[in-house]
């Protein structure tokens, strides 16, 4: 029931290269998954907020309606099922079509999974920007797309930055689910190490500490980025106030 400190150190020293590899893969998956997920989320979140009006052409109405239904379905499915299940199912389902390896498949799945969460975050962000700014853009002759790109989306992303950043933390932890596709991320490595030395407690303790360090560093960086955004704003204000 106790953690033997000397064993802990020796497990760590002996297996460091394996842990190090796991850390690297986990970070890569978390970062790529979050960035690609954000891009997917921006696109699907924007589609989700589109509106048609009576004067639009039939084709546009159909496309927009279809787009909205599709994104709703996508968000519903990917937020409503565990990523382990998504990963296994999609990998095997599409293997005959894409002939993909597990790494590519995993990267795509973590991105698409994150995208579903990002879509909802981005949608909330879009709704947080007051309607008047959209009306003003339209009154100047800008299209909905132009208004979204230049005016609404930058504010939507800024307003929801903490939630967006949180997805990185989630991905550092949840990328562990990709072990089902034998992605050699940190959890997979931990599992392999413990499986060969039978020191479950010490090995998983080290793993937990590493995860904690990774998420703490990520939090720290995200906080700094958030502060920087505010400081940049304030600096602008100070500069012109003087």
């Amino acid at each position, binding site marked *: 029931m106790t953690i033997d400190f000397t064993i802990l150190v020796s497990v760590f020293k002996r297996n460091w290269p394996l842990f190090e590899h796991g850390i690297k893969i986990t970070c890569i998956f978390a970062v790529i998954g979050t960035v690609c997920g954000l891009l997917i989320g921006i696109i699907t979140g924007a589609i989700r907020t589109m509106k048609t009006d009576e004067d639009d052409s039939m084709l546009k109405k159909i496309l927009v309606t279809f787009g909205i239904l599709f994104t709703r379905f996508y968000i519903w499915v990917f937020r409503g099922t565990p990523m382990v299940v998504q990963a296994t199912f999609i990998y095997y389902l599409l293997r005959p079509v894409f002939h993909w390896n597990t790494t590519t498949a995993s990267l795509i799945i973590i991105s698409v999974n994150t995208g579903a969460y990002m879509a909802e975050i981005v949608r909330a962000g879009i709704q947080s920007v007051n309607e008047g700014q959209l009306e*003003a853009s339209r009154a100047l002759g800008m299209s909905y797309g132009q208004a979204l790109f230049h005016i609404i989306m930058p504010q939507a992303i800024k307003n929801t930055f903490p939630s967006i950043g949180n997805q990185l933390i989630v991905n550092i932890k949840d990328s562990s689910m990709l072990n089902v596709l034998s992605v050699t991320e940190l959890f997979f490595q931990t599992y392999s190490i413990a499986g060969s030395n039978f020191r479950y407690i010490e090995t998983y303790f080290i793993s937990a500490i590493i995860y904690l360090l990774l998420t703490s560093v990520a939090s720290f960086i995200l906080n700094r980025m958030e502060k920087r955004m505010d400081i940049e704003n304030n600096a602008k204000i100070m500069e*012109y106030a003087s």
Partner: protein
Amino acid sequence: MNILEVRNLSKSFDTQDVLKGINFELSQNEVITIIGSSGCGKSTTLRCINLLERPYDGQILFHGTDITDKSVNRNEYRSKVGMVFQNFNLFDNLTVLENCTIAQRTVLRKNRQDAEETARLYLKKVGMENYINHPVTKLSGGQKQRVAIARTLCMNPEIVLFDEPTSALDPEMVGEVLEVIRSLAKEGVTMIIVTHEMAFAKEVSDRVIFMDEGLIVEAGSPEEIFNNPKEERTKQFLRRFV
């Protein structure tokens, strides 16, 4: 020839008939003010003219072309009819200068240099040339509204619509905004102004329209409306302001 002709304009929200057949025309260089009690449909009239609301019935002829027709390019039309809102609706993510250049660049496809040159010109005109790189969120109400007016003028619109441009301002800032509008009137900018500032309406307009319950009750020169109103309802309304 009239630049704008509104014929039998009707609009309802749900079951409420807000506009019940509005008819008037606006000629080049003319300044029309619309007065009337709260809820009579003044904003809705302007919003229909700008196509921010879809008219339920009637025609809006711009240089003789009915712009409620589906084949009309609405964004192009809107870029020629500026709108200044009660709540300014400036773009919070952009600086004063960028607020004035974004639509020029995206809608009129001007290059940065031309757009900035135009923006500086109009910002100077409204007395905001010293705030060019200032973020708009920190401006006072009067300053915001002056930037909003400059932003609209930058598009070189043929008509400018003002929807209660001073109603959201602290009393001490009303003057600076009215001063700007007054100077535009002198230069011959074609305008429709919705306002509760009766003295200003009297001074600046060529024609005054009094609306009540979705209809134009009386229209005429400022003299006619303010000094010799014919309709009982007009008299009643004006009595509140003396």
